[in-house]
């Protein structure tokens, strides 16, 4: 560790390229905190959006016309509006309407803070796409399979959880993969409501240390690595879940 920080310090002194995050412990901590926040945001939104997407797809194949219509409207609206405006709509529009408590210092402390709103808003945005992806996956499952499950006495919900969804997920993994990568990239939007994630942390660092170019390179590299890790994980999952003899 010391060798790395020493090297970057000497690199700065000899070339003038100031990668302050790698030798200044204060900047390093901020960067790592930002990275942690990005990871928290990504993991929670990915999980939430998967759950919401699966639920939406279940409702969509269900009997209630009203619920189907509601899910449809949700998908159509969230797919066709910018995620940033959605985020602002939720955070400012709803966030200011919610009751708030006051902290000891007299600051307004809302029930849901900006991080919670970012998670909610981004999950809903990605869920709208996931509903559509899961539905396409469910359509690939043949009717006869569902009928066989019914004949074995499965209820609709049980059949969905144990038979239809596991098959559907395997079928739609490549499309899901794309959407989740997209979601990871969209978490940068949380910057706009001051959630201290990677972009926010690096922006603070470069405004203080005047090293925009170097921090930009760190930023690009960070997201490049994060996306590659996600893609690698998803590919591994895809291989593990692969249905023998399907589509190959």
């Amino acid at each position, binding site marked *: 560790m010391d060798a790395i920080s020493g090297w970057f310090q000497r690199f700065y002194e000899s070339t003038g390229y100031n990668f302050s995050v790698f030798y200044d412990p204060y900047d390093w901590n901020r960067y790592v905190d930002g990275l942690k926040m990005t990871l928290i945001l990504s993991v929670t939104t990915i999980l939430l959006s998967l759950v919401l997407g699966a639920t939406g797809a279940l409702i*969509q194949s269900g009997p209630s016309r009203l619920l189907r*219509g509601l899910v*449809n*409207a949700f*998908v*159509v*609206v969230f*797919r*066709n*509006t*910018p*995620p*940033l*405006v*959605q985020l*602002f*709509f939720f955070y*400012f*529009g*709803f966030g*200011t*309407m919610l009751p708030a408590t006051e902290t000891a210092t007299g600051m307004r402390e809302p029930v849901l803070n900006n991080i919670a709103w970012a998670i909610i808003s981004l999950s809903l945005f990605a869920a709208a796409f996931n509903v*559509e*992806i899961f*539905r*396409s*996956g469910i*359509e*690939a*499952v*043949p*009717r*006869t*399979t569902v009928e066989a499950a019914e004949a074995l006495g499965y209820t609709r919900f049980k059949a969905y959880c144990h038979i239809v969804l596991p*098959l559907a997920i395997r*079928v*739609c993994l*490549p*499309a899901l993969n794309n959407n989740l*990568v997209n979601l990871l*990239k*969209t*978490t*940068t*939007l949380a*910057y*706009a409501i001051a959630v201290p994630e990677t*972009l926010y942390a690096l*922006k603070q660092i470069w405004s203080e240390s005047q090293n*925009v*170019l170097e921090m*930009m390179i760190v*930023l*690009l590299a960070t*997201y*490049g690595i994060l*996306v*590659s890790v996600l893609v690698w994980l998803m590919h591994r999952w895809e291989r593990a879940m692969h*249905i023998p003899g399907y*589509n190959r």
Partner: protein
Amino acid sequence: MMVPAGSQDGFPVLLPFRLRRGETHHRLGVAAGALLCIGLVLLVSTASAQGGRVAPSALQVIAKWAPLLLTGFAFNILISAFAMLLGTIAGLGVGLGLLSDLWPVRQTSWVLTQIFRNVPWLVLLFFVMFLVPFQLTVFNAHIPLPDWVKATVGFALPVMANVAEVVRGAVRSVPSTQWEAAEALAFTRRQSMWRIILPQCFKRMLPPWMNIYSLVTMSTVLASIVGVSELLTLTAQVHAAEGGRPELFAPLYGFALLCFFLYCYPINRWTAHLERRFQTR
């Protein structure tokens, strides 16, 4: 080789996965659309009911500022159009580079595509905003580069990478027999590319290209973060000008949502329609 989905229904076989967007399922019916509008009006009116007697209601505020906000939205569309134009031209070049015979060209194009596809749009926007100078000096002539031009370039970069992928995918989807037939007719590689393969690709490229366009349009609001005065910036300014009442947030941002929805939804419907029409089985 794929059999139409309908005729396979009888067999207990997993059907091939196809992401069918907007086909019967995700269409907003007349009833649902009406419900949505009523819901929005209700939302706005409840918000204004809380606003008290003296302050103008949210609907009045929106009506008053609508011309300004719509100008902002027009600016968004202008940025998206320019970004799309730039990105498409560059993307065609990079896409053909991806298919090139020369490996350095192929490698460079591949690296370019991967970088600009995998980095968040906002990060690229920051990249261009901070690292491109505010004016260019060419032969002692100063060409100013206003913020929105730089933002346009910032949006054009991811468009370029996405268009390149679309071009590559479309060219790959042309059956290899077409290449062989062209070769048999003594076309050179370049001739067969331009006169035989690309004309066939055009139809396949149109729907994904329109998809990208709708993505770009929705991303133009990111420019507000870096200080270009488009719809979202103006919305925040209007909100401040009306006294910064918190109950005005929802209607004003709701109006911005509505603008984008009314613009992007028809484009998406049309894309889905074209996709179905051009579907090659």
